[in-house]
């Protein structure tokens, strides 16, 4: 992972920095709360937390404009919060309640929002990649200038359909940013054990797709790379790959004891490269905010998350006739 100090001098306003701080903190606190509710048995099944990777989605959302689309796999809570979906609706979906964004029928891995142009939430590793290119295909067909952010992990990067998609995205010049969220572990298998190339974005070169490495622990670096990628797509030059080097602090899912890496490895990233601490430092050292200002933000976020959790507990389970609805349009 690139060290934090590689960040160039940020050309960014205090308000922007505070926004990123707030958005990343929302994801972190939300995920911690989700982990807690899982522990209490309120959330069932699979639950994949995004803690550690917050700068990726917050940075890229900062590069998006209204109407742009996004799609990802099942580690998706961060993406939903970053594009503005209601935390209460997300949390209530995690608890399988009527007030959830999929009425409790999708769960942690399957949520969607037409309004926010969020297209899931997909449970089959790699399947969202052609789907994302298809969204971009629709944008190009309709000539609406839209760009689609198609997120997938270093694990999905070994799926064949990813390369089928790279090929078609390239020959058809689809306006899609392929975002490889490289958190170094495909469930429990490290990239070095599963992947022939050190830098996965190089694989795009075989298809003529440009790309680059991005420090995913630095929200400003992510945003800058995102802006470059989006400009490339919007100019009609076809797809672009961002390989964002990031790290997840928690296990693959809630039931993963994470014995494939040392506690020291996790601790080192947390202490030296945490994306939220990074922005916090920028705010404080640049005198853009005081400790008290940040405490106020912390408090505000905690309140938002607590309200989401309350809603997710109070919202009733879906009515039984929901079993039979939404099968056919």
């Amino acid at each position, binding site marked *: 992972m690139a060290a934090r100090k590689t960040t160039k001098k940020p050309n960014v306003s205090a308000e922007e920095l505070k926004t990123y701080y707030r958005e990343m903190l929302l994801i972190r606190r939300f995920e*911690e709360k989700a*982990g807690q509710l899982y*522990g*209490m*048995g*309120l959330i069932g*099944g*699979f639950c994949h937390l995004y*803690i550690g990777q917050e700068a990726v989605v917050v940075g890229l959302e900062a590069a998006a404009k209204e109407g742009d689309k996004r*799609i990802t796999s099942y580690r998706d809570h961060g993406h939903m919060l970053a594009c503005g979906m209601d935390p209460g609706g997300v949390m209530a979906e995690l608890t399988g309640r009527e007030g959830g*964004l*999929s*009425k409790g*029928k*999708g769960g942690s891995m*399957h*949520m*969607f929002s*037409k309004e926010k142009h969020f*297209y*899931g*939430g*997909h*449970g*089959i590793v790699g*399947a969202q*990649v*052609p*789907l*994302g*290119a*298809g*969204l971009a*295909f*629709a*944008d190009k*067909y*309709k000539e609406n200038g839209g760009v689609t952010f198609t997120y997938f992990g270093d694990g999905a990067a070994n799926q064949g*359909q990813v390369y*089928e*998609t790279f*090929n*078609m995205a390239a*020959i058809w010049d689809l306006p899609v940013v392929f975002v490889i969220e490289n958190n170094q572990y495909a469930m429990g298998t490290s990239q070095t054990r599963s992947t022939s190339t050190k830098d996965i974005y190089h694989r795009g070169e075989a298809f003529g797709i440009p790309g680059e490495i991005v420090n995913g622990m630095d929200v400003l670096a992510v945003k800058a790379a995102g802006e470059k990628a989006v400009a490339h797509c919007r100019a009609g030059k076809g797809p672009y790959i961002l390989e964002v080097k990031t790290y997840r*602090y928690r*296990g693959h899912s809630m*039931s993963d*004891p*994470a*014995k494939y890496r040392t*506690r020291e490895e996790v601790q080192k990233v*947390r202490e030296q490269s945490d994306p939220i601490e990074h922005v916090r430092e920028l705010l404080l050292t640049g005198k853009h905010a005081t400790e008290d200002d940040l405490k106020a933000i912390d408090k505000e976020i905690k309140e938002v998350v607590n309200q989401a959790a309350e809603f997710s*507990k109070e919202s009733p*389970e879906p009515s*039984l006739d929901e*079993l039979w609805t*939404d*099968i*056919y*349009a």
Partner: protein
Amino acid sequence: MATEILMPALSPTMEEGTLAKWLVKEGDTVSSGDIMAEIETDKATMEFEAVDEGIVGKILIAEGTEGVKVNTPIAVLVEEGEDASALPAAAPAAAAVTEAAPAAVEAPASATAPAAPVVDLSPDWPADAEMKSETVREALRDAMAEEMRGDEDVYLMGEEVAEYQGAYKISQGLLDEFGAKRVIDTPITEHGFAGIAVGSAFGGLKPIVEFMTFNFAMQAIDQIINSAAKTLYMSGGQMGCPIVFRGPNGAAARVAAQHSQDYAAWYMQVPGLKVVMPYSAADAKGLLKSAIRDPNPVVFLENEILYGRSFDVPQVDDLTIPLGKARIWREGSDVTIVSFGIGMQYALEAADKLAEDGISAEVIDLRTIRPMDTGAIINSVMKTNRLVTVEEGWPQGSVGSYISSVVMQQAFDYLDAPVITLTGKDVPMPYAANLEKLALITTDEVIAAVKQVTYR
């Protein structure tokens, strides 16, 4: 404020566990993310992290304790200056999950003999419509062309559909009329282009995906089922997938095992999909037009051998036939023969020959396999009391098996003989001409089955 820390559930199935080791002691300050304890589940030893910051006020469960139930308070976190001993003895926080009572969801009507089902017997086109002989191939092309003229969002994608004019010439002329933007040649990557098409449907388009044959759609079946069929449900009704997957299905001639399989029974199983398998040219046209307009994903199973077959097609503006409506090809009183797709050829030939022997067969073409017009079948069986199903697919889990179970449950008292479900043989398709013939269903087999159920 003091907060209780509860024994966490650390897997989807965990109910209790062993508190193996405390990594903090009373008085320690912890912040979010710090590892507090190691907990052994039935599967693994997991690290348990603090969520809130605070001071460990009291440890309630000693390390080494086994069988600690999920949600039992194991420690108390206090804020600076707070006294843990002031806390009331921690009562176990109630698990907040409401037990979903396995409420009596109404079972589908079964067991009792039915009232006559409601069956749509309305004609598909006006009786005085002018008829013209057309091939199934022409009918399918005309259906696509008409829908593409009517809706800019409809496009066709697949291998060789554009410049080559279709591997089986179904898309002949479409590139010339609609251009390369809407008639799109793909690389030979079924998995990828099916996914791209599904994504484009999420994005507001109405794709028609041609598989050169449905055998190759097995490469793409994850996108058809997991992405296309399930998304409406998974999104709570927000996001549908209007798409048609079409192409030849079933055995052609002498193309052996990997190119000769009938997928009707496979796709029939999937809620969220509609499955169409036409026999005649008129049905191919009317059903494909309806499929393209349908807001749901439709699997449209054609047949290479039927492509060149000619049928009368009504010359009406905008011929559409509703999905889910069977067609009675021939009325009869002694036995019901239900089939679809190329199976209809054997069913109809058999009915002609049986008539010579004085056996009156009613022949029903399902046309749509899902949703299935079981009402039409039940209605007919209530009249004939005998049923033979005919299909090309394999026997185990066949379309006929399902029909047979429905009839047994809904019209048991009307049956005068066991239902016979005729299928292809339970073997991969052989190449040798004589063996291939043996593997396929034949008219003679249909005749023999009818004679068996009519005790002739």
